[in-house]
């Protein structure tokens, strides 16, 4: 029987805390293997999604640990493996949760939080789309690349216009929700 979304979300939270209590790299390696096995199809995409945000931080941390080990002459392999594996396991858990848990359903008991989440997500998409539109429009209008000063001025103008548009759109959404009785909780 498939688990409900609130239960999946609760399991994710429990697993995240449990992983921070494991300090043996071999156990973490087993957990990583288990997660990859259980996560079903689309494992490479999931691993990529999990690895991308933490890659640079792990590279910087690992080089720092290796450098410190070289300076002090102490073995650092255990700490290196432990920290890297833990961060990757936690990132993989989060990526899996994002893929397989519908947060709208998981937050069904908290309608205000759910509504806020929906509006903010909508606005984030709107800002991204406006920024993309602006970049494309500017590229198509100019033969040479704009100077830094022009880019700053253009970004400020589009940013404030996006803010106005965002507020207007969000007000429209709220009015639509109110007219459908969604704000009477």
């Amino acid at each position, binding site marked *: 029987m498939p688990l409900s979304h609130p239960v999946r979300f609760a399991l994710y939270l429990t697993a995240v805390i449990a992983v921070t209590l494991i300090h043996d790299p071999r156990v973490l390696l087993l957990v990583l293997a288990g997660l990859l096995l259980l996560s079903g199809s689309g494992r490479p995409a999931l691993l990529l*999604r999990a690895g991308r945000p933490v890659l*640079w931080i792990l590279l*910087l941390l690992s080089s*720092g640990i290796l450098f410190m080990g070289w300076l002090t002459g102490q073995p650092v392999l255990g700490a290196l493996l432990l920290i890297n594996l833990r961060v990757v396991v936690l990132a993989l858990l989060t990526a899996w949760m994002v893929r397989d848990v519908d947060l709208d359903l998981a937050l069904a008991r908290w309608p205000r939080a759910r509504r806020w989440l929906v509006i903010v997500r909508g*606005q984030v998409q709107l*800002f991204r789309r406006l920024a993309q539109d602006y970049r494309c429009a500017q590229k198509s209008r100019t033969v040479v690349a704009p100077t830094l000063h022009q880019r700053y001025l253009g970004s400020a103008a589009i940013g404030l216009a996006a803010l106005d548009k965002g507020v207007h759109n969000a007000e429209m959404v709220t009015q639509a929700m109110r007219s459908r009785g969604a704000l009477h909780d």
Partner: protein
Amino acid sequence: MHIPDGLISPQTYLPALAVAVPLWWWAARAFTRQVGDEALPRLAVFTALAFVLSSLMLPLPGGTSGHAIGVGLLALVFGPWVAFLAYTLVLVLQALVMGAGGITALPVNALAMGFIGAWTAYLLFHLLRHVQADFAVLAAVFISILFSALLVALVLGLQPLIAQGPDGSPRFFPFGWSVTLPAILLPHLFIGLAEAALTLLIWRHARRRCWIPATSGREI
């Protein structure tokens, strides 16, 4: 300056959670009192703006990342409690959508950036606004970012002292304050200046549009 999951020990994030939960509860009460349905769209837009600002990240050697925050702007427009709650939502979304920050690091990130950042910006602005309003915005945002960065650097640098294996090897973040303080604070001097200028631009726009209520304590 997000701390990712896996670098903070339970000795740190569990007490931070115990501090953050009552503050979130109190902030939720303030939110219900202060934010009516008519202000919710504006809050959502500013929350989204904070999300976009803090999504442009640069990894720093101190085990965290450098980016604008946007919480100062939220605090100046909506007050510190609402800003704290809104920024917590930004952090949750970033953890879940982009994998930046994380669930175990959430209480520390929320307290450092959301709570300390919002309250520092709010209090400094109200302290300095009688001198000159624009200067007050710039100073409040700049110093609030430095305070948040300082707290993140202190928490990260504490990890090797409180979470070690039997052989003394670090179990979580491995570097002490001699690394974290300069690695995190120095880049945030520049980030703070840029964000202060950006906040001033948007704050002036918000004031022109009358989005900052004239009757509340949040106006100039």
